[in-house]
């Protein structure tokens, strides 16, 4: 496949691996932010190719993993309402709420649909005027423009049966939460290429400066990941802490202005509870008052009790880079994809799932 195979070229991979080995003199801990990157590293066997003194820890960039258990309960509550269609990205369905998952309520008869785009949900609302259609709008900055656009469309179409359950999360505040944790061991970040395609690079400069931490915006293919690691290690070895862009084929410094305008038209920044981590100030998007008739929380007057996380799940420590999945005593025993204790074991971007499905090396 053109534009992909170039970034999976075995010879280039080999060259980058050798170069990383050549320049690494000290032990370094790098965190890749995005779950897509985690899977790229594990699925392609890249972790085994790196020098022993480079440790990759896996960040919180898995939207399914960080969506709080209370929000999943809200989605389940909405799905179980009569005459309601709850639409969601496929990934969210298996994640357990406090009592059950969306997949289970679907099996019990709730109308839960898997969609690829929130605009499909708007179409569904047009086609089903006698039903309420709710889109479960999760994700990082990457999915926010399309979710916002669905609200703009619904507003233009004057639909009164469409709303979104917004649970957006933002990368820079999460990075700061991780870096300011007193147990933090992270020397450098691979920032998420897709998020920066939308948001650009500006908001990362203050983070790199304040915490004196190199930050390389990185893509998802093997060559991307290795190039990103090489750029970060080079900075560390030289004692630098800059924001660099490996993903130049998509990311521009100023980001995608049209996408950002759409986000700010519909959303405003709010506090958000991250599953396993807790509340992080200004780390999410909520629907603005101007579009409140499309905010499912207000429309359906959602006031559910705050649900408790499963205490046996150490997902918070994993997403902060303090522990690796296989250091969890429940990994692969009490916690498996078919009966997960927490979200990282379920999501296709979750770190625990990546290790469970792909890793053949118990030392990683």
């Amino acid at each position, binding site marked *: 496949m053109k534009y992909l195979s170039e970034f999976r*070229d075995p010879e280039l991979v*080999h060259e980058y691996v050798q170069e990383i080995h050549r320049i690494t003199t000290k032990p370094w801990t790098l965190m890749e932010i995005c779950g897509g990157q985690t899977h790229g590293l594990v699925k*392609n066997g890249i972790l085994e190719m790196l020098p022993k003194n480079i440790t990759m820890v896996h960040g919180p960039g898995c939207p399914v993993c960080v969506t709080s258990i209370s929000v999943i309960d809200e989605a389940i509550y909405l799905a179980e309402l009569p005459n309601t269609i709850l639409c969601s*990205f496929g990934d969210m369905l298996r994640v357990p709420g406090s009592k059950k998952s969306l997949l289970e309520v679907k099996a019990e008869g709730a109308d839960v649909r*898997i969609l690829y785009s929130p605009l499909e949900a708007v179409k569904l609302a047009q086609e089903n005027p006698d039903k309420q259609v709710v889109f479960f709008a999760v994700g*990082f900055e990457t999915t926010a423009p399309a979710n916002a656009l669905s609200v703009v469309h619904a507003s233009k179409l004057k639909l009164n049966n469409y709303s979104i359950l917004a649970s957006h999360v933002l990368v820079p505040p999460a990075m700061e939460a991780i870096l300011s944790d007193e147990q933090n061991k992270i020397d450098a970040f691979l920032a998420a290429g897709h998020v920066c395609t939308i948001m650009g690079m500006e908001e990362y400069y203050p983070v790199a400066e304040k915490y004196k931490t190199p930050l390389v915006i990185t893509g998802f293919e093997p060559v991307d990941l290795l190039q990103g690691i090489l750029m970060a290690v080079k900075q560390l070895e030289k004692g630098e802490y800059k924001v660099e862009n490996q993903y130049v084929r998509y990311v521009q410094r100023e980001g995608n202005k049209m996408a950002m305008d759409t986000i700010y038209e519909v959303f405003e920044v709010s506090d958000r509870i991250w599953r396993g981590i807790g509340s992080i100030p200004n780390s999410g998007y909520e629907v603005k008052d101007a579009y409140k008739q499309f905010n499912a929380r207000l429309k359906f007057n959602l006031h559910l009790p705050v649900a408790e996380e499963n205490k046996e799940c150490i997902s918070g420590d994993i997403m902060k880079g303090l522990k690796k999945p296989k250091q969890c005593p429940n990994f692969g025993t009490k916690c498996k994809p078919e009966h997960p204790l927490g979200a990282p074991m379920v999501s*296709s971007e979750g770190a625990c799932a990546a290790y469970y*499905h792909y*890793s053949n090396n118990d030392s990683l």
Partner: protein
Amino acid sequence: MSEIIKMELQCPMPQFDFDVITMGHGSGGLLTHRLLESGVFDLLKNDLLNQQHDGAVFELLGKTAFSTDSYVISPIIFPGGNIGELAVNGTVNDLAMCGAAAKYLSLGFIIEEGFTMQEFWTVLNGIKNAAENAGIKIVTGDTKVVEKGKGDKIFINTSGVGTVHPKAAIHHNRIEVGDKIIISGNLAQHGITIMSMRKGLEFETDMVSDTTNLNHIILQLLDRFGENIKFLRDPTRGGLASVLNEVAGLTKLGYRIEQKLLPIDEQVEGACEMLGLDPLYVANEGLFVAIVKNSIANEMLELMKQDSKTSNAAIIGEVTNDNSGKVILKSNIGGTRVVNYLTGEQLPRIC
């Protein structure tokens, strides 16, 4: 193969009393009788079915294989075939994987009230064509109708019997270290074709399902290579990964495959990338996995490449001593990873 199916003409639909199937068509009364008389029996006619008895009576010689499967696909009509073809080919292929030449099939319909006669006729023609291509007879059947909303258009069950090839010795306990793993064609074609038609996911492609019968090629291979073919399985639901995991679990040997050797159509690969699906887990309908003695692997591959149904066949890996009970994939870039069973359905990802 898909080209052959597409070219086959559909018999003209006879005049039915109704445009849609009603509860009465499953009552066993006059409507059932008329439906069968004016359509089904005529289309699928053969000496055994023509007797219209409660069951078929026949003689089989030698060791016999027996298999059953149910078909519940949506949409029921898709590029490259329909549920009727799947229902015949699926059971014919299951028997072929046992080393048997399918001979007789039963055919059970569960039809949802309101199903159109036009679609039913298309499905029946699919069954007729697939039966003719495979060289088998439908010898007994059943039709039930359920209320609207209690089914999804049409469900089909087929069971089949066939005589096992005298040279066949297919059993997982015959697999040894060093045996080669062969896949008979491009991966993930059927699953991705179906997915491209599902509501909310429609995308334009010219992909067609790979549904086809495999009995002729399997029998030809058994004639030539006999007991050197140690294991056969069609990687339908759950795809190649599930078949290999199953056999790894049964034999406690390691199964090592190489990503760069896996045959896959570029369009299918692109669709998998876009949807976030792993082709190793996507369903196939006209494909088989063979585990064969190392010494005949190349010769068998050459023979397979000459048949249009298996022209994309490839040796994708081998059986190893290490990694007992596991399937290991060597990635394109040289790393290795485990290929596990899939948990539940493969769900599209968020971003």
